[in-house]
């Protein structure tokens, strides 16, 4: 009996010590570790790495990053919950701060690894991937320089040798001009190697040119307008500020890049919809068959790559969810900057010429008749529809009181409520003076809102894309650069092409002023992350937004439509409009000199004594 037990123990222990012959069991690849050699020899993996880098490109305001800041300037105010951007007493000095060298490092590392490990890649593939990586690096440096001024130009991996002395890693800031020159030379070097022809989500030759067109325009205008200030913003080492003599060269580079895109015929202004207002909306917000968009950050619901922008900003009256909506609401300031089609100032006519009485309109949208079609394409005004649905914007009624010979204003806290005459009092879409999640200005956003069914619900969400570059901007870049270079005919021609698409008819302008170009950019590129950067590079932000309540550019206005209740009078049931400072708007926009360049984090300054501070902070 004892012997049997011995045998059993012996045989079991023998079994446990034996091993399988199949060696691959031990030599399998770990499923959760990817080796460098695997990544850099597999175009698919490299592509997915590139997708990660594209996704990390910064934006100050986009559909996903910092979208709330659309309501912080003079395009819109905040009508959602909380205070949003309505009470910014002054912009913080670190507001546009960006010091993201982790993306730069990842790209530098990728550029080195692709050479080191990428043995199975063809030379062509290597060049193309490297070019694409360098495009992304140039893009990131442009984002850095436009916020911070000159930054250290790091183009290789920085490796610490543990010697106790980190000074080889501490690089000083390059001058602002050097960073712009670096961007230009990188883009010139890679533009022909990029491939990706026809893609509007990955960089191709024309994407590189588009970035060059924008970056060089920024550099040129900083060189010109900074030196026209009473006291140019500069540092002794040139980290901030570009010599005025460089302006012409930069403008010329910008114009060259723009014209190469325009003359290539690879892109065209979107002109598929005969309804010019809808056409302009589709030019930015329609993804299929869009010949205008050069580079976009795309989203796809089916792959769970989607965002909340439509949920947060859908018009209240037609929202599909029971929460959210109406956060970003365009201001009257923006609306009035859209000109009338005869070229006259876009100021809306609410009062008679002598100011004694309202102007009475038969329909809500009659006041917007004959306006620039881009107004319709950018925002939803009273009387306009979205997805064919009436947004119903009406603040209340004006009841005539014969005893006092004046109107009494009646508004309601109940959206969509009826007045005692059985007709509408306050529209389902507001505007309402104090409620949240309903417009406070009398307007709703249209650009970038997703018309797909249920796109504004929390369950489905939106896959509208974010446009980084499109041909409309390139035309205006070309026009501005040509204008600054004194090539007036060219400049007029380029602006006219953009205006023609907006309904102005051919050759609507015969001469140009800088103010006209600036206004054209404001209305064409509203809500595309341009406004604050444009005002900065023209060095007028501190004048336009000077923080004074008596400055109509710094205060944000609303337009409240009312229905007239005056039975027995021909003016009964007509509409009148009142302009007012948006009721939920608190502090005038206040841009200080220290905002032109953002402050550098004290931690960065402490770690690297070679970094000099920006002026004013």
């Amino acid at each position, binding site marked *: 009996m004892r012997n049997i037990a011995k045998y059993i123990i012996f045989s079991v222990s023998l079994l446990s010590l034996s091993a399988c012959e199949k060696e691959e069991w031990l030599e399998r690849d770990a499923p959760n570790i990817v080796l460098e050699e695997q990544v850099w020899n597999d175009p698919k993996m490299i592509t997915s790495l590139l997708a990660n880098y594209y996704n990390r490109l910064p934006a100050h305001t986009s559909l996903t990053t910092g979208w709330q800041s659309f309501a912080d300037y003079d395009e819109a105010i905040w009508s959602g919950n909380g205070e949003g951007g309505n009470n910014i007493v*002054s912009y913080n000095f670190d507001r546009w701060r960006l010091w993201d060298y982790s993306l730069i490092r990842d790209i530098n590392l990728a550029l080195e690894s692709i050479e080191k490990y990428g043995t199975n890649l063809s030379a062509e593939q290597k060049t193309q991937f490297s070019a694409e990586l360098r495009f992304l690096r140039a893009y990131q440096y442009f984002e850095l320089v436009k916020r911070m001024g000159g930054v250290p130009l790091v183009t290789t991996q920085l490796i610490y040798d543990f010697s106790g002395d980190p000074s080889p890693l501490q690089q000083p800031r390059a001058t602002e001009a050097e960073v712009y020159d670096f961007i230009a030379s990188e883009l010139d070097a890679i533009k022909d190697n990029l491939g990706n022809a026809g893609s509007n989500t990955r960089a191709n030759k024309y994407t590189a040119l588009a970035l060059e067109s924008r970056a060089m325009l920024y550099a040129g205008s900083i060189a010109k307008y900074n030196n026209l200030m009473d006291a140019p913003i500069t540092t002794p080492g040139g980290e901030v500020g570009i010599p005025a003599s460089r302006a012409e060269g930069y403008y010329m580079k910008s114009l060259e890049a723009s014209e190469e895109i325009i003359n290539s015929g690879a892109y065209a202004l979107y002109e598929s919809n005969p309804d010019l207002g809808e056409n302009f909306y589709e030019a930015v917000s329609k993804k299929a068959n869009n010949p205008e968009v050069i580079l976009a950050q795309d989203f796809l619901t089916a792959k769970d790559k989607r965002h909340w922008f439509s949920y947060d900003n859908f018009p209240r009256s037609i929202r599909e969810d029971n929460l959210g909506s109406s956060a970003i609401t365009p201001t009257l300031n923006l609306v009035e900057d859209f000109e009338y089609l005869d070229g006259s100032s876009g100021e809306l006519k609410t009062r008679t010429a002598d100011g004694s009485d309202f102007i009475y309109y038969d329909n809500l949208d009659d006041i917007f008749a004959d306006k620039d079609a881009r107004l319709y394409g950018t925002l939803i005004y009273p009387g306009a529809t979205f997805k064919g649905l009436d947004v119903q914007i009406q603040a209340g009624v004006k009841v005539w009181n014969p005893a006092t010979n004046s109107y009494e204003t009646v508004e309601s806290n109940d959206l969509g409520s009826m007045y005692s005459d059985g007709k509408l009092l306050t529209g389902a879409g507001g505007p309402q003076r104090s409620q949240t999640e309903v417009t406070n200005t009398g307007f709703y956003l249209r650009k970038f809102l997703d018309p797909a069914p249920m796109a504004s619900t929390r369950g489905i969400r939106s896959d509208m894309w974010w446009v980084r570059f499109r041909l409309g901007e390139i035309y205006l870049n070309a026009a501005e650069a040509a204008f600054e270079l004194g090539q007036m005919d060219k400049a007029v021609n380029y602006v006219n092409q953009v205006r023609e698409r907006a309904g102005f008819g051919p050759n609507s302008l015969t001469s140009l002023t800088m103010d006209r170009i600036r206004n054209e950019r404001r209305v064409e590129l509203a809500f595309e992350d341009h406004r604050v950067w444009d005002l900065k590079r023209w060095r007028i932000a501190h004048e336009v937004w000077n923080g004074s*309540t*008596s400055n109509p550019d710094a205060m944000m206005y609303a337009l409240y439509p009312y229905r007239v209740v005056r039975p027995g009078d021909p003016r009964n049931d007509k509409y009148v409009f009142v302009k007012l400072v948006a009721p939920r708007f608190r502090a005038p926009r206040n841009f*200080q000199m*220290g905002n032109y360049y953002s402050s550098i984090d*004290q931690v960065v300054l*402490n770690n690297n004594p070679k970094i000099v501070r920006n*002026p*004013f902070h």
Partner: protein
Amino acid sequence: MKLRGISYIIIALGVMLTACEVDNYEPPKSILEGHVVYQDQPVGVRSNGVQLELWQPGFELFQKIPVYVAYDGSFSAALFDGDYKLVRLRGNGPWVDNTDTIDVQVRGNTVIDVPVEPYYTVSNETFQASGNTVAASFTIDQVNASRELERVTLYIGTTAIVDVNNSIVNVSLNKDAIADLNAPINLSLELPPNLSGRDYVFARIGVKTSGVEEMLYSPVQKIEL
């Protein structure tokens, strides 16, 4: 049994809800205060706009403590006792840049005045109200000739905080319109209807130096209407 259960809960709650008496650190108690002065007179500025920096070296956390200057040129900060460095931030106030560091020893409440050299000062200002008109007379003194005068402005407001951002009405005189800088300058304005019915308003003269963002202001004066 039920009672015992409740008593356990009470004991448990008693343990959970009590805490040590000693909680973190004492808050800073020493007050550093003073004025920004020129020739021992406080320099009036825009409230909440002009900033001085305090630095305290020797600790791992090296971040500035911003100290904002009030409209009358005063400032104050609650600090721990210690040695600080006070810096006049470049390009920030209506005065000539001076990056000399001022060492400040804070031992209990400390008073320190920060000397600055303005480009221009306002003196001999008088305000007079007659009917709906407010008239001001003053002289501008050039202290530092490195920058030009841009304009002078009379600001009227309803509170003691009157400056470029907080005023109901104002009237400006550009440099070109000033014939003689040494002679007294007169500015006057009509009060709008929403002000003329009041018992008093506050007035202040501001001087804008070309290329300097902040303005220098005279002391706020209350004007009985």
